[in-house]
């Protein structure tokens, strides 16, 4: 690990002032940044420890039905907040399917959204990577690409975004609150992670000194509570990143879908959402036919970026599985294996 200066600012203004200096990195839980520093991928000259900034660890219901979650809320605390988990069961399930209990006890909301890709070539400082050094090239192309993107990739970058949490959040129209030297702004989470361009790699769209202060869920997002699931396929039962995943959220009245949300994880540089696929389901009777149609639309245009063509069909099937489970209803209790394809589909159903 390189030597660095360490600063623990007392206020947001002080933090932004320090965070805007060249070579500065914000540190919250540190589970992602410290790991990257140990392997030499992150080499900040100044670490700005924001973990004790006041007022950023609250979970609030807003007047009008929306929710606001502070940037420093720990993943485990959000998943275990009874009110939040009841309103957003798919988000809680996604959180609990990620990392380990130890990591979730420390990792923060903002850190989860800011985490870097787990592309092995990004994580290896000796490999060429456009994300680490723009213009360097991409050694993942033609390399070990089993886990890489099948949607929205270019020759510049084929990395995926690893977050589970972000997948149902994008489906629910979550908005990221950002503060920086020029003041505050809000950005839909769906636009927070840029897709790669012909020459540019994907990544987080934050300017120097900017940091996440919170996340808002709009009024109406909790209306999907009775039919919200997250399903994640990974190469071991627990403590692994998604090969592919899907968040499916439905509103069903009189055996008819009146609203639908669907997003895929593990397939692109950001959670993949196609509003047209959701629109295809509205007015239909929940069932395999309509779920297959919607899932097929989700992977339209998908292409292998290497040895990962299997992920296209897998993503389609995981989307169908997630929709089927969502239609059956949110379980009354969090499954023993959250988001697992091994969890039984049956069980008590909770109708909020």
């Amino acid at each position: 690990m390189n030597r660095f200066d360490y600063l623990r600012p007392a206020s947001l203004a002080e933090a932004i002032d320090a965070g805007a200096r060249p070579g500065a990195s914000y540190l919250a839980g540190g589970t992602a940044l410290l790991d990257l520093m140990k392997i030499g991928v992150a080499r900040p000259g100044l670490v700005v420890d924001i973990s004790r900034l006041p007022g950023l660890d609250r979970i609030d219901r807003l007047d009008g039905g929306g929710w606001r979650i502070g940037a420093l809320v720990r993943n485990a605390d959000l998943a275990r907040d009874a009110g939040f988990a009841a309103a957003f069961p798919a988000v809680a399930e996604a959180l609990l399917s990620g990392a380990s209990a130890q990591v979730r006890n420390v990792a923060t909301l903002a850190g989860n959204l800011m985490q870097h890709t787990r592309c092995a070539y990004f994580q290896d400082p000796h490999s060429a990577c456009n994300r680490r050094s723009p213009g360097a090239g991409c050694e993942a192309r033609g390399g070990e690409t089993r886990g890489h993107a099948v949607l929205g990739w270019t020759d510049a970058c084929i990395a995926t975004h690893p977050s589970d949490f972000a997948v149902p959040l994008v489906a629910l129209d979550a908005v990221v609150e950002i503060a920086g030297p020029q003041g505050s702004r809000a950005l839909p989470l769906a636009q927070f992670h840029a897709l790669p361009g012909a020459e540019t790699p994907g990544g987080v769209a934050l300017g120097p000194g900017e940091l996440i202060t919170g996340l808002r869920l709009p009024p109406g997002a909790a209306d999907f509570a009775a039919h919200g699931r997250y399903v994640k396929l990974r190469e071991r039962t627990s403590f692994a990143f998604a090969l592919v995943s899907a968040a499916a959220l439905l509103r069903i009245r009189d055996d008819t879908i009146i609203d639908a949300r669907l997003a895929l994880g593990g397939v692109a540089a950001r959670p993949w959402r196609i509003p047209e696929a959701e629109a295809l389901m509205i007015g239909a009777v929940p069932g395999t036919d309509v779920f297959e149609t919607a899932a097929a639309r989700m992977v339209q245009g998908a292409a292998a970026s290497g040895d990962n063509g299997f992920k296209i069909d897998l993503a389609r099937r995981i989307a169908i599985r997630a929709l089927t489970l969502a239609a059956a209803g949110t379980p009354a209790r969090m499954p023993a294996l959250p988001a697992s394809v091994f969890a039984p589909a049956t069980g008590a159903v909770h109708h909020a």
Partner: protein
Amino acid sequence: MTLSITLVVNGDRHRVTLEDARPTLLDVLRDRIGLTGTKKGCDRGQCGACTVLVDGRRVNACLSLAMTVDGARITTIEGLATGDELHPVQAAFVECDGFQCGYCTPGQIMSAVGLIAEGDAGPDPERIREGMSGNLCRCAAYPGITAAVQDAQARLAQVEGTKA
């Protein structure tokens, strides 16, 4: 620039000076305070051998800079027993054969203490395995570990019952 932090480890207050901010909580516990029960496995948060409690929550000591836990109460494996009397989780690991080589065991036990305190798993072995998935055991003593967590929960519930 010398940095200074205070940690309350197993009830004892330690003032530690650091040359710079790089040492992790794990390195400070082992190399500066001399508590080597907490193990360094992967040093990247993947194996769980370094699990300790920070203000009562189980965390990977390798993924926390010591600076960031300045002022915290830390519990390590050395802080569980009362004199010669093992903590119920330690006793359960012995009784249920929850280990073989023993290297991961301090982390397993601290993780189990954290899991039981969280109160989400209950006696369901599937929930216990999922809750303990941040702790690897290369000897694969998992059946014994799961049984030990179940056994320890029962012991602790009994202790609570006696108090009530």
